[in-house]
C-alpha cells in the first residue's frame, strides 16, 4: 500500500492585533505546527470577506481558518462580533450545501496564546488531512 503523502493546503486569516501576534508568539516559543498553514495578515477578523474564503477554496485550499481576538478584546471593539455572526451564517450555509463543515473554522486566539495557536493549527490540519482533498468547492480549472 502506498504511504499517504497527502498534504493539505490551509489558509489562515489572522487579525493583526491578537492572532497574528499569537502566531508570532508560537514562533518565539518554537511551538511547531505543520507548514501547510499559510497565514494572511488582516487588520481585523472582520476584514475577512466570505468571498476571500471561497476564493481560497476555488484556488485549491483544503481548509480555511479565521483567527481573531477573543470576544470583548477586539482592538476595534466590535469587529470580531461581526465576524462571529458572518462566519456562523456562512459556515452553516456551506454545511447546508453539503460542504464538509470541518474545512472551515473560526477561532479566538489572543496575542498571549502562542500555545493555543499552535495547538489549533495542529488540530485543524489533522482534521482537514483526515477529510482529504477538497472536492466539493474546487474549481477544476485551477488543478490542471
Amino acid at each position, binding site marked *: 500500500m502506498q504511504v499517504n503523502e497527502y498534504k493539505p493546503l490551509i489558509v489562515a486569516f489572522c487579525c493583526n492585533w491578537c492572532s497574528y501576534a499569537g502566531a508570532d508568539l508560537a514562533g518565539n516559543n518554537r511551538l511547531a505546527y505543520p507548514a501547510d498553514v499559510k497565514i494572511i495578515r488582516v487588520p481585523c477578523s472582520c476584514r475577512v470577506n*466570505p*468571498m476571500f474564503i*471561497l*476564493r481560497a*477554496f*476555488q484556488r485549491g485550499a483544503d481548509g480555511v481558518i479565521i483567527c481573531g481576538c477573543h*470576544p*470583548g478584546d477586539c482592538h476595534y471593539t*466590535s469587529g470580531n*462580533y*461581526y465576524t*462571529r*455572526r*458572518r*462566519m*456562523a*451564517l*456562512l*459556515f*452553516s*450555509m*456551506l*454545511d*447546508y*450545501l*453539503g*460542504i*464538509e*463543515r470541518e474545512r472551515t*473554522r*473560526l*477561532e479566538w486566539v489572543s496575542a498571549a496564546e502562542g500555545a493555543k495557536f499552535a495547538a489549533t493549527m495542529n488540530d485543524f490540519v489533522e482534521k482537514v488531512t483526515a477529510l482529504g482533498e477538497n472536492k*466539493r*468547492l*474546487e*474549481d*477544476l*480549472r485551477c488543478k490542471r
Partner: protein
Amino acid sequence: MQKITRDVLVNKAVSLLEAGEVKAVLGWGKGEFSYDVTPTVFESADELRENFVWNDFCGANFSKYLVSKTRKIQGKILVFLKPCDTYSFNQLLTEHRFDREKVYAVGVPCEGMADIAKVKALAGDGISAIDFTDAGLVVTTLYDDEPKTITYADALAERCVNCKSKKHVAYDELLGESGEVLESARFDEVEKIEAMTADERFAFWQGELSRCIRCNACRDVCPACTCEKCVFDNPNSGAENKAPATSFEEQMFHIIRAFHVAGRCTDCGECSRVCPQNIPLHLLNRKFIRDIDNFYGEYQAGAEVGSRAPLVDYNLDDLEASDVFDRRDTE
C-alpha cells in the same frame, strides 16, 4: 380569487392621477394571454382603464422599481403593494434606496397568487383562456374541448402556500383590509434538507445549481439586490463572472448572492418565481433567515423601517461559529 376587484384599484389610481396627486402609477399591465402580466408605468387614466390588470397572476413585486422610477419621474408615483411587497418596500426605505416622499403607497389585500407552471401541469399546455371564477381558475386549452377547473389552492404558488404575512407593514392608504402575520410552514423544506446527510445535501444542491444559466434574473428581480454595481458584474471584485464555467462558480454565485441578502431578504420569493430553471433559490435565503432566527432571535427584514439587520448587529453572547453545528446535531 382576489377579493378586491380590479375596478377598485383602477378607480383609486384614476382619481389620484386625475387629481394630480400622483404623476404615474406603477401597476400590472395586460399581456398577450390571461397570465402574462407586465409591470407597467401608467401615466394616463385611459391607459389604466384599458390595460391595468388585477388577477391571480399579479405576483410581481414593484418595490424595487421605485429605486429607478423615483429618480426618473418628477412628482409622486402611486404604487400598489401586496402585503409581502410592503416588507420589501420598508427594507428599501431602511437602506435609503428611494425617497419616501415621492411615493404614494396603496396597500392591496392578497389572497395568494397562482403559479402558471402549476396551472399548466394540471391543465396542460396550449392555454387559450383562463377565467377567474368562484370555483377556481377555469382553463380552456387548444386541445381539450371542455375547460378544466383548477382550484385556487391547487394553483397557489409555493411562496403563497407558505405566506408569512397578510399584514401590510407600510402604506399611505389601504384598500380593503390588512391581515395578520401568519404562522407558516416555510421552513419545512429547509429542515428537510438539513436532515439529509452531507452527501445527500451536496448531491441535492449540485442537481439544483447545475441547472443555473446565470441569467441573473434572481438577482435582477430581487428587491434586496439594488447595488449600483453588483460584484458579479465588476471585474475588480474578484468575483466577476458571466457564465458558470465550473460547478464552483455556480456555488460561488449562489452562496454570495444569498449571503449578500442575508438579514435583508424579506422572503418575498421573487427569485424563485422568476428562475427560468426552477431552482429553489428561496431555500438558500430561508436557510439564512432560519439560522438568523435561531441564532440571534426572530427577525423579519422589512417589518419596520430602520431596524438593525442581524448582520450589522451583534450581542456580546452570540453563538460561536463552532457551536452552529453542535446545536443542530444535539437536536
